[in-house]
């Protein structure tokens, strides 16, 4: 082995026998070994400024706290938002005086048909008008007016009709939709519509031309 081989053994921390003996007898390899040791000591002696450690620790703790913080606020923000939504829904649905949307039930039985009694005053007035008309009108006009008494009631519902004429006055009612019609055929028609809500009754007054009164 020459010195280059021994240097490799020394640098490689070889446990080869004879290194110590060679070092005792070889000035060059002794220098080499001493320099290796000096380099090692110099490497170990390298120091880091304390501020660098402090900076690292601060950065680590800041990072940990930053990772914790958003989770905390995010969770509470979600809980708060959910609570607000629930409160809003409860307030608007259960608010007093506000009836929520309701689906009308389809009646199993046929709706009750009420036959509205003819208003007495209407009859009286009708007679009076007829008399006046018959007096005022000429023959053709009187005939037209008489034809008008045979005018069919408009209402669109033709399920079953019943009614009759009594002194020029007819009372008609339809079954099947809760609609009652009453009134004079010549002067006005009263349409009473019963709805699913017993408190709500729609009354529709129509004159002989079909216009709403």
């Amino acid at each position, binding site marked *: 082995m020459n010195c280059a081989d021994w*240097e*490799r053994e020394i*640098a*490689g*921390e*070889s446990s080869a026998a004879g290194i110590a003996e060679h070092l005792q007898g070889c000035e060059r390899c002794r220098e*080499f070994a001493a*320099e*290796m040791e*000096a*380099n*090692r000591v*110099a*490497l*170990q*002696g*390298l120091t*880091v400024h304390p501020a*660098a*450690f402090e*900076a*690292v*620790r601060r*950065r*680590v*703790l800041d*990072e*940990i*706290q930053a990772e914790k913080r958003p989770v905390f606020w995010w969770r509470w923000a979600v809980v708060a938002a959910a609570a607000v939504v629930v409160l809003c829904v409860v307030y608007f649905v259960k608010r007093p005086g506000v009836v929520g949307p309701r689906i009308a039930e389809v009646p199993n039985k046929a709706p009750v048909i009420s036959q509205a009694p003819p208003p007495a005053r209407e009859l009286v007035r009708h007679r009076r008008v007829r008399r006046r008309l018959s007096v005022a009108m000429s023959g053709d006009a009187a005939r037209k007016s008489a034809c008008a008494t045979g005018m069919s009631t408009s209402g669109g519902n033709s399920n079953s009709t019943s009614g009759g004429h009594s002194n020029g006055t007819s009372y008609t009612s339809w079954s099947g939709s809760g609609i009652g019609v009453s009134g004079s055929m010549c002067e006005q028609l009263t349409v009473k519509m019963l709805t699913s809500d017993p408190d709500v009754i729609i009354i529709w007054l129509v004159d002989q031309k079909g216009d709403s009164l």
Partner: protein
Amino acid sequence: MADLRLSAEGSANCLDRARAGDLQAFDELMRLHEKQVLGTALRILGNMEDAQDAAQESFLRLFKNLHKLPDILEIKSWLYRVTVNVCNDAHRKRRRNRTEPLRGPDPASVTPDPELAWLNQERGRLVEMALTTLAHKERAAVVLRDVEGLSTREVAGILGTSEVTVRSQICEARGKMKKFTDRYLRKRL
């Protein structure tokens, strides 16, 4: 001996508190290992900025894995492994994004200093420069062996290689460093 036992008990207590989320306890743990982590990272990576980033990442990994470490005695070797891995990652990233090559200073450009007394002080700076000229794996091996004073077996365990490989890397690294210092010192003298 009693002090050592007290210190070990204190460290174990510190680990338990850190596991429970006590940041002050974790700060104490960092103080115990900061020289090891930052010193290793600095010598492997060669500059303070990257070393601080690597040390930060290593400690964050420690914080996240505290519950996996059964014993306070495990932390030291675990931290070495993590630090070296983080440095490897940083080295790969730096190599990809590198804008200027990593090389040691040109010895001829340094002003000669006739004072021989300077040599010992300068040697520290020289070996630090010499470290930057080594291959990454050689640098890691020589830092763990010569700076941190670990045995060849421990170094092999941390680097995940065989002892023979570590010896070879250390031999190569020391030879290169010596050549570097020789070249510089010869120019000076």
